[in-house]
């Protein structure tokens, strides 16, 4: 496909991808994408969750081999494989951290390129190079510390130092700021500009459009694995970029959002403390959607998991009230029995048994209803599963197919479907649409609204700000395991949430 209308660069092209295609099963993650980045350019790649950004980057870094198309550096086509790409000077900072927990900072920074004398690690040089890399990005950390003992932010910087240490021609960063505070982010961005000034080609992925506009020269916009357009930042506006990303006029029209009439309190948590949760009080009412905002690492997942007993609490109590009867939530099993449903953050590892069928996955939480005298009712199961699959709009609705065969969005629908069977009183979702494509995403949103309208209490953790703003009747913003502020729909906007999440109002105490 041609990208004719797209903005070209006058710079000397360093890295180039030619019509790369990558499929995962049926789903096409990257479709006929071509991209060229010049020396000294910071090039943004933006798109919604699941647009194919990370996949494209993994292809550029030689970690994934494209089904067709290729990657070339300085006009030379690369062999497939990570090694060739590394040698060609491509360094990737992964979205999900890829450090070795039990190795030291120095070892991690030079992983794969450890300097040696006759096979013996040259620790002096190792420490020197690692130290220099950290200096270049201006971060100070004990080189002998085991990475497993570092904070998320610090791990992120170690990852970046690791990329820099290979003094690459091309530096790729996949959502590096997701785990950072504004101060840290600010620092990172200026750092990238310094690196670019030295002639590095930088590819920068972020969901935070302002960052893109601050440092990037051009932006490649992906949607559903395809290039929508390549824009020159100087000649466009954030709204234009967002619209292209989403493929429709995205207006958060607060007037037309559903009017919630919250009923009685269903979930009530008081003084919740746990690992990385430092004393939280929180209520969720029937028919109300409560949103939890904050940065990755703020402890939101830990918060909700502690409330409903997935992870142990160190202090605090949580109660659930169903038709006037109030029960303590001690332990997760008890929570589920009293009408709580939980859609976890990690779909593939916590949400589904991927190699079991959709029907079996749906049966799991409903096993009691679907069995008599300890025996499963097969006929009943098929009928039951199909009904729920249709309710959530699973496509295709073949419940005898293994869950792992479905796309991310459909997998998430299955996770939700299996809980709907229990008609939960409270449904807790952690990152409900992470990696879910646009269509599925809006369907899931519709589903959640309907549930709320039917009087279900909903508690949503999301890093996806538009989603949070769109769904929530009230938003609690979490930082360092504390609620920094609570925003009503009319107070809530990207700015106000971010401000709280970054702790700007309470800068002194952070």
């Amino acid at each position, binding site marked *: 496909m041609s990208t004719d209308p797209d903005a070209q660069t006058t710079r000397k092209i360093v890295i180039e991808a030619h019509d790369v295609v990558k499929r995962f099963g049926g789903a096409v993650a990257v479709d006929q994408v071509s991209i060229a980045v010049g020396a000294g350019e910071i090039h943004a790649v933006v798109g919604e969750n699941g647009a194919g950004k990370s996949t494209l980057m993994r292809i550029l870094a030689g970690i994934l081999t494209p089904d067709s198309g290729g990657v070339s550096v300085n006009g030379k086509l690369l062999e497939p494989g990570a090694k060739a790409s590394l040698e060609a000077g491509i360094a990737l900072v992964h979205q999900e951290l890829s450090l070795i927990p039990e190795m030291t900072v120095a070892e991690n920074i030079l992983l794969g390129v450890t300097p040696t004398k006759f096979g013996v690690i040259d620790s002096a040089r190792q420490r020197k190079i690692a130290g220099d890399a950290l200096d270049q990005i201006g971060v100070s950390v004990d080189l002998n510390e085991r990475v497993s003992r570092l904070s998320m932010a610090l791990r992120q910087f170690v990852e970046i130092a690791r990329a820099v240490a290979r003094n690459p021609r091309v530096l790729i960063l996949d959502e590096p700021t997701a785990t950072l505070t504004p101060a840290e982010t600010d620092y990172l961005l200026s750092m990238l500009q310094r690196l670019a000034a030295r002639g590095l080609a930088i590819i920068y992925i972020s969901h935070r459009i302002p960052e893109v506009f601050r440092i990037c020269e051009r932006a490649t916009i992906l949607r559903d694995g395809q290039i929508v357009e390549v824009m020159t930042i100087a000649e466009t506006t954030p709204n234009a970029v967002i619209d292209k990303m989403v493929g429709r006029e995205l207006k958060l029209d607060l007037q037309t959002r559903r009017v919630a009439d919250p009923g009685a309190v269903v979930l009530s948590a008081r003084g919740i403390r746990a690992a990385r949760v430092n004393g939280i009080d929180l209520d969720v009412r029937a028919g109300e959607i409560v949103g939890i905002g904050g940065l990755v690492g703020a402890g939101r997942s830990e918060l909700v998991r502690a409330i409903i007993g997935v992870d142990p609490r160190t202090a605090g109590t949580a109660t659930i009230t169903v038709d006037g009867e109030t029960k303590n939530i001690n332990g997760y099993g008890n929570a589920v029995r009293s009408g709580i449903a939980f859609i976890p953050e990690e779909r593939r590892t916590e949400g589904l048994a991927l190699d079991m069928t959709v029907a079996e996955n749906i049966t799991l939480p409903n096993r009691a209803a679907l069995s008599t005298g300890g025996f499963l009712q097969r006929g009943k199961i098929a009928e039951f599963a199909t009904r729920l699959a249709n309710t959530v709009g699973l496509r295709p609705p073949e419940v005898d197919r293994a869950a*792992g065969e479905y796309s991310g969005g459909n997998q998430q629908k299955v996770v939700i479907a299996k809980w709907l069977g229990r008609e939960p009183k409270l449904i807790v979702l952690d990152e409900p649409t992470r990696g879910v494509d646009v269509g599925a995403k809006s369907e899931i949103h519709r589903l959640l609204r309907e549930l709320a309208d039917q009087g279900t209490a909903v508690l949503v953790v999301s890093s996806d700000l538009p989603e949070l703003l769109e769904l929530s009747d009230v938003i609690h913003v979490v930082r360092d395991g504390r609620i920094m502020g609570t925003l009503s729909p009319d107070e809530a906007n990207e700015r106000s949430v971010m401000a709280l999440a970054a702790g700007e109002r309470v800068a002194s105490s952070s």
Partner: protein
Amino acid sequence: MTHTEIIKTPTPASIAGGSGNSASKTVAWVASRGIFIFTAVLLVFSAIFVNGFASSVNIIDVFHRASAIGIVAIGMTFVVISANYIDLSVVAQIATSGVILMALSPTYGVLGAMAIALFFALLYGLVNGISVGFLKANAVVVTLGTTGIGAGILSLVTGGTIYYGPTGGPIDAFGDARVGPFPLSAFVLIIVAIVASIVLSRTKFGFMIRSYGSNKQATRLAGVNSGGVVVGAFVLTALAAMIAGFVLAAYSNTAVSTMSEGYDFRALAAVIIGGNSLFGGRGSIFRTFIGVIFISVLSNILVLSGFSFAWQQLVTGAVIVFAVALDALARKAEKR
């Protein structure tokens, strides 16, 4: 026999369908059912070429070889499918129940002795299960430990005494009993297989074991008491080991603390040759049953053909390697 399972490990690729990978899918289909084909081939081959294999007396011997080990393997399948690799302590468990049966029936009667054996079986199941399920300890190490403790105590208490029942006594009678051409123990094996198969494939509990083996976290987050599931798996294994102990003791009307040496890995071998996945989730009792038949027939014809112990070991090992290699290749073929 009921027999539900997910034959292939589904991967995103397997719905890519379309061109090219249909061939590799056929490979996968054949390979994943390899054991059934091999067993059939082996049976036909033996019937034709191995002198005396098809005789009714020999069928009995095949079943004698199959029954005790088969019952253990069927029990072990629950531990394997719950993704816990192996229960090494079955060796100690079999001997314990066998010795208790033979040593205590004179005083407490057969049923009394069985009741006492049941107590110890449950003890084994609970200790193993709780350590693995609730203390999250590695199953191999835990059962290695309980083996040392259990076998040590058994040996301390009984010494090497061979306990034997009166000839013609109830236990001996059971051991010698035939139904048609088959020894009673064969029916015990088949009944255990059917019951186990129903439990694993039809009941809520079996479903939870499979689901747990397939994905521990997701199962727990669906509100399943995952620790309890693991305990259940180990208890079932222990019960099977107990029954195997009875059968083994009855077969020779004797029991001694060393009667079940090697049953741990031999049982696991049967489970694996059957094509059950060690990663859990995937598999069935029927597969284990076939694996047991395969191994038993194999050793039977090796003896019939006069192979020395050495060659029997060598061939058995080679067959295991071949079977598991094929299984792995099948999974690869699917991924492609």
